[in-house]
């Protein structure tokens, strides 16, 4: 996947509580639609976004295992809630609570994916940041990124087990903080 060298500004962007950032992808995660809010917040043009892989807005702080979880779920036909920090074109970042769901054709086949993102509560973000940091640390400590991701995945599993929730429930419990 293409990765441009974007210098992180450390500046956080945000968007309105009534707004949703919407994107659609094909089954491979290539962006097929980006709404005006997305375009505006991410700072990319529609042309730049359409046809680009969704990792175009990937932030380096995001642990791999969260995206693995995302893909595992959506490719199985399930919805996913995930807190994601994204990278703007100029190096700013913004937190979203992403709701990612598959789109089906009449035969029930997955034709692509859809994501609506809300602006998350600060308190939820504050809870998520250290968790992601620890997962990221586990991943970075392993020179083999796959193995590292696997370790982090295990850690995430233990974490969820300790609070007695599925990932959905966990994410949603944070949403409830809203």
């Amino acid at each position, binding site marked *: 996947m293409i990765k441009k060298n974007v210098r992180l500004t450390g500046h956080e962007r945000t968007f309105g509580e009534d707004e949703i950032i919407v994107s659609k992808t094909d089954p491979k995660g290539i962006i097929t639609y980006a709404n*005006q809010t997305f375009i505006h917040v991410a700072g990319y043009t529609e042309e730049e976004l359409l046809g680009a892989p969704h990792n175009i807005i990937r932030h380096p702080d995001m642990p791999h295992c969260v995206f693995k979880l995302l893909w595992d779920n959506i490719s199985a036909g399930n919805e996913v809630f995930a807190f994601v920090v994204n990278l703007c074109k100029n190096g700013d970042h913004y937190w979203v609570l992403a709701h990612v769901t598959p789109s089906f054709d009449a035969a029930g086949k997955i034709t692509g994916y859809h994501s609506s993102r809300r602006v998350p509560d600060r308190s939820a973000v504050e809870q998520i940041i250290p968790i992601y940091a620890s997962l990221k640390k586990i991943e970075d400590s392993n020179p083999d990124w796959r193995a590292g991701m696997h370790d982090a995945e295990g850690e995430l599993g233990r974490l969820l087990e300790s609070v007695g929730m599925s990932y959905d429930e966990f994410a949603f419990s944070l949403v409830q903080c809203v």
Partner: protein
Amino acid sequence: MTLTTKQTPSGAGSKSLAARVQELEARLKNYDHWIAQATEVCNRAAHGDLEARLLHVDVDGDLGDLMFGINGLLDYTDAFVREAKAVLGFTAQGKFFRRVILRGMVGTFKHAAQIINESTTEMKHSAAELSQAESRRLDIADQFEATVKEIATSVAAAANEIHNTSEQLALVAQQTASQADNASRSADRTSAIVIQVDESSQQLTESIGQVKEQVAEANEIVQRAVIESSEANTVVAGLKDSSHRIGTVVDTITEIAKLTKVLSLNAAIEAARAGEAGLGFAAVASEVRKLAEQTREATNAAREEIGSVQDSSAKAAKAITACGEMTLEISETSKSIFRLIQQQAEATSEIRANANEAATETAQVTVAINQATEAADNTRESTERLVTAAAELQEVSTTLSRSVDELLASIRKV
């Protein structure tokens, strides 16, 4: 992005009409294109395809706003439908944590989302109540089972115990009955003996009375004998005196006879000297001498008789004295016999009193024994009934636990 130039009224006059027409035609074409695009997207949406969007919109103004408006409408509708679908999907699986996220939702969407969320909360409560009711039902079933099983077990145990106890009781009752029977027989024998004792002691009392009379009689006789023996003593003493005096008389007679003989001899001598004249006298003298001789002989015999009389009377006196002593002894003995008999009589009447008391007590014992026998019989009967009841109880408790098992099975199956 867009190539559209800003259309300003001031710029209109600086262009040629042809250029302006061309420009307007191009714009119109673009407008037509977007209207066609919008129509297409709306039609698809109207047919339930919420995927299509208007991309690369390069018109400004109202038409551009319309395009973005359509996209926005579709985005919210799409988002709402996905949310609602997800929530209902989770709800259908009994997961109630999922709610439509109100953030980002507006107007009717938000309102509908709120209603969905309220319903979900409602359903969550109902489901919780349902599962609570369910687990309560199972709890109740468990409790019920535990309680009934415990009861059934203890009933069975109790029945078993009752059974054992009643068997022991029956044995005890049987033993009691046979012991009571034995006791009753001994009581019967005892009372027979008591009656005999009473009779015998009555007879004894009677005999003692007779003996007493006889002893009294004997005493009287003895008293009389004592008097008579002392009288006899006096008589014997008198006899001794008389015989002594007779001896003296005999001695005197003997002396007289001796003298008479001497005198007769002298007379004979004298007669002989007198010759014939003396002849008659000599005959008398000889006659006298003969008489003297006979007197001596008679007195000798008398002396002998007197001696034997004296001997006999001495013996008699001795015998009488001994007899008197014996009589006194007899009298003493009979007195002590009397005392003994008196004691005997007292003892006998005591025995009778005791025997009577024993008879009364034996009668009471017999009554008690009869009661005990009756009680033992009753016990045996009750015990038999108890054994039957215990067996029934056991059966009932078995049936009970079977019914409970069936009941619980059906409760838990629901």
